[in-house]
């Protein structure tokens, strides 16, 4: 069954995680604890946002950081900083919603035993993070790029192919016919006729007309 397979994979991922965490440098502390819970502080960094964002005003202000699929929704400060307050100890999921960019969800462990310790790892590629700085995995292009006009695209279209074939039949076919020796042609035609195979002339109207004219 597929499920067993997947669960084996999942176990392996788990194992990888554990190994990863042992190998990783000690977790960064970015929390301040109190009775209600802890705070998670981080930063969203989008390369080239300042220059690119100029064309679309207010783009950075529309970025949201989401904890546990909507439990808390946070917004970015001027430099991309965000924080979640009153988060209980445990394992959480942080997602970043930004138009035009794909962010991997981040697994965040808030330690209860060492208050103030947060460990984070990207879930898409299982990479541990030394500090909670989230960067997009890829840019998202929502539209097909319209290819600039080219002769090839015109030729490739059904109509282009029609015209192409026609030109071929009109210009090249007679040229091909000319290259054949008329004697040989006649012989071949007679051979075909005797065999009862439909002749070339009946297949090609142009050649047929030429042959008829010759005979």
């Amino acid at each position: 069954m597929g499920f067993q397979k997947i669960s084996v994979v999942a176990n392996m991922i788990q194992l990888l995680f554990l190994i990863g965490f042992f190998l990783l440098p000690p977790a960064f502390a970015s929390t301040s604890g109190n009775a209600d819970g802890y705070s998670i502080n981080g930063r969203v960094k989008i390369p080239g946002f300042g220059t690119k964002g100029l064309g679309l005003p207010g783009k950075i202000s529309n970025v949201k950081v989401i904890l546990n699929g909507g439990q808390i929704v946070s917004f970015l400060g001027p430099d991309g900083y965000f924080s979640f307050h009153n988060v209980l100890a445990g394992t959480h999921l942080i997602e970043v919603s930004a138009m035009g960019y794909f962010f991997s969800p981040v697994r965040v462990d808030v330690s209860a035993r060492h208050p103030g310790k947060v460990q984070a790892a990207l879930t898409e590629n299982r990479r541990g993070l030394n500090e909670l700085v989230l960067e997009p995995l890829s840019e998202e292009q929502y539209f097909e790029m319209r290819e600039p006009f080219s002769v090839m695209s015109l030729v490739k279209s059904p109509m282009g192919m029609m015209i192409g074939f026609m030109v071929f039949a009109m210009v090249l076919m007679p040229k091909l016919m000319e290259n054949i020796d008329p004697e040989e042609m006649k012989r071949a035609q007679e051979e075909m006729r005797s065999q009862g195979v439909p002749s070339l002339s009946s297949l090609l109207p142009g050649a047929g007309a030429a042959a008829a004219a010759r005979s």
Partner: protein
Amino acid sequence: MAIRVFVVLFILLSSSYTISSLYEDQVGLMDWHQQYIGKVKHAVFHTQKAGRKRVVVSTEENVVASLDLRRGEIYWRHVLGAGDVIDQIDIALGKYVITLSSAGSTLRAWNLPDGQMAWESSLSGSKPSNSFLLVPGKSEKDTVIIAYGNGCLHAISSVDGELLWKKELDEGIEIQQLVQPFGSELIYAVGYIGSSQFAAYQINADTGDLLKYESEASPGGFSGEIVLVSGETFVAFDATQTHLVSVKIRNGKISFQQTHISNIVDNLSGKATLLQSKLAGIFGVNVGTYTTFVKVTDEGQFVVLSKTSHAAALSDVLPISDGHFAFSIIQLDGDKIQQTVKDVEDWGNDFLIERIDMTEKRGLVHKVFLNNYIKTDRSYGFRALVVMEDHSLLLLQQGEIVWTREDGLASIIDVTTSELPIEKQGVSVAKVEQTLFEWLKGHLLKVKGTLMLATPDEVAEIQKIRLQSSGKSKMTRDHNGFRKLLIVLSKSGKIFALHTGDGRIVWSQLLRSLQKSEGCEFPVGLNLYHWQVPHHHALDENPSVLVVGRCGSKLDNPGVLSVVDVYTGNEVNPWGHVHSISQVVPLPFTDSTEQRLHLLIDTHGNAHLYPTNTEALEIFQREFTNVYWYSVEADTGIIKGHTLKSTCTLEVEDKYCFSSRDLWSIVFPSESEKIIATVTRKPNEVVHTQAKVMAEQELMYKYISKNLVFVATVTPKASGEIGSATPDESQLVVYLIDTVTGRILNRMVHHGSQGPVHAVFSENWVVYHYFNLRAHRYEMSVIEIYDQSRADNKDVLKLIVGKHNLTSPVSSYSRPEILTKSQSYFFAHTVKVVAVTSTAKGITSRHLLIGTVGDQVLALDKRFVDPRRTANPTQAEREEGLVPLTDSLPIIPQSYVTHGLKVEGLRGIVTIPTKLESTSLVFTYGVDLFFTRIAPSKTYDSLTEDFSYALLLITIFVLLVAIFVTWYLSEKKELEEKWR
């Protein structure tokens, strides 16, 4: 031959990974997007400075937005999280919008021009409480914001959000009001201790020092909210709700005065509510049909000032220059809005009385926000922002409605669709008129456009004309079935009809039966059902929808039923208030006028038949024994199957009422399983083929039953948020249950997984989305169900001999031999809602429509969630179109149907089939609305929008020329040959 070509083409098209992608310049051709904000709770004007005049609002949909005061358009907008309810908003320093949310625990400042968050601060406290926000003064010197929340008073610097001081108020006090009189440095916090003690704190706003504390017991006690009358006067009801109590704080002394309510209101019927006009020295008593205004004198005496003939709304007090203060009273008189702006000092002095015509029914006035400006002749002008009962927002200025926003559309409850009328002379909902002059102008513009003489404005105009002439906004049915009416029920009890072509509102109607009335305090709309869909013999009838509602939120409250004509919006046959409604079962039968039979189940288990006519009863009696339904009790974890028994035994005879009996029940163990999701197939879904052809000429029969329900249960401990349970203590169990027999067809356990579960059931498969705690990623699983009992039928020999069971009836009672196949895949995003495309005949392959946490809608080909995907598919499987196995589902940016847009606050996705088999309409709603049409296997049955007719014409022309040229050449050559 044509069919074969079609099939070959179809296979060719469907074997490539189709993604319904768009070019950027195609945006808006077949989709539309509308942005809303929801019902406004608070509004703050920003008009002092020159430049853009704007109003900042917060709404019940947790939206904070800045609107253009001239046109009502959105400058910027933020939708906060679902639990992040906005308590108060204000403007500080003239450049920040301050929002207090999450019951007073989050304070944020947004940049006024662009909506960028400037700072955020978290306010902690010891206990939950009311929350208040004070932004003293609007000048740039005052930098202190006072916020009360969680039992603590906080002073925050408005420059950077730093906490200046924090003061915890006494444990027992329940703060009801936070006041800062104009120009004062003192803050008063008043509230109750217990039910009879009134307490007041006086605090220095700069230092947080407690200056005074007073408390005094009132003989009559208190109930409900305290209304703020002036800086030191408050009014509330006493504990018995029969007396009004005024509280006066003077020189540190608290004194009470009370009067019986009958002294103020003549003949009280129903409940009276108090209207607050902050610091006007007066307050209003609203008793449903009219409002009385009362002044509180310095001694605390009540003086009745005047009485309006209609229910009114009051604005807060607005300081206008030279020490004058004004406030506004708005009342609705028939189809006119009457606005009165009064002077606080002098009741008889009206600054302004205006009566404004309002053609559309919008219900009562709920809120008023007043703002003033100085006219060119140096006199005062007033503008008022009015929130109506249907959640719409109006701006009144100089005796007219400047703009209107239909923000009821931000809170859609249910959606259904209807066909438009057939094109016929005289039958059209609204005429689309085009005069000769406009026609001429349009053609001139087009000529200009082709000659490259048009300015950018004119190009836009040409684009608009092109959209119009494409006929997508016509009010009649089209050949492809793209034009329809979307019938939308909103939370306010208003029903809208939107045109699918351009999204405009064709009509809207505030339903009388869903308005507040005696015996029905809080009516809520629940669902829409197709009531009458005329085709064939009843074509002259207009189609109609059934609106089901309920008085109040409890299940055993009386129900509300109404039938609404889809073309006009009129309520045709409102039954009004009926028995309680726990479930509505649309039956697959219609009477001679094409009214669909519906069975409404009440909380006692009785079934009521609608429509109530003898013909319907006759039809129903024939099918009496074939009616089954099931009910899910999520709290107790029981699923029950029901059938009909006999007619009801009630005191009043009712031949349309039937009693029911339980057929079966499934009880889930409450300590280990909690029902979190149940999903069934759409009743109107069409399945084209019963069988699926596999590689190597294998045949599998789909198990297609309308009576299947998918149920997901989770360990009670893991029913909360992610992170609340460890993988070891949570598991997700999914069931497939036959709802006629109660037989569990399939059960599967996902260890270490938890909800929320979002599922979609279509044809013979279920796809569901859940969270895998071990991998800490979201997963999507698919279950496909195949019928094994019919597997023998693929033997041709047996078929010829006649030993097959193809003709045997399919019944839920026969024990099915089913085979399930399933597989799981990782999916990156949190999902809000899942739907599936639906087409007219079910031939086109299906796409899953996934509403992600980023409020986008992703179209995912069903073939990616196929349980038969393997890592190395064989050649035959590859030819069949099986995708090699990957551990996670691909997210292709081009396949977002919402492309570069967001549907903020996404809540639902509705798919509607068109007459064109390849195409499906998609309507997505939340705070925003988005509509588009998608073709999951590309438009194989019609030419695409960007098909180049010009190229086709050129080709034909070139071919014709070529024919003549060759003809001429061959003639010439023939002649030459003959001469030779």
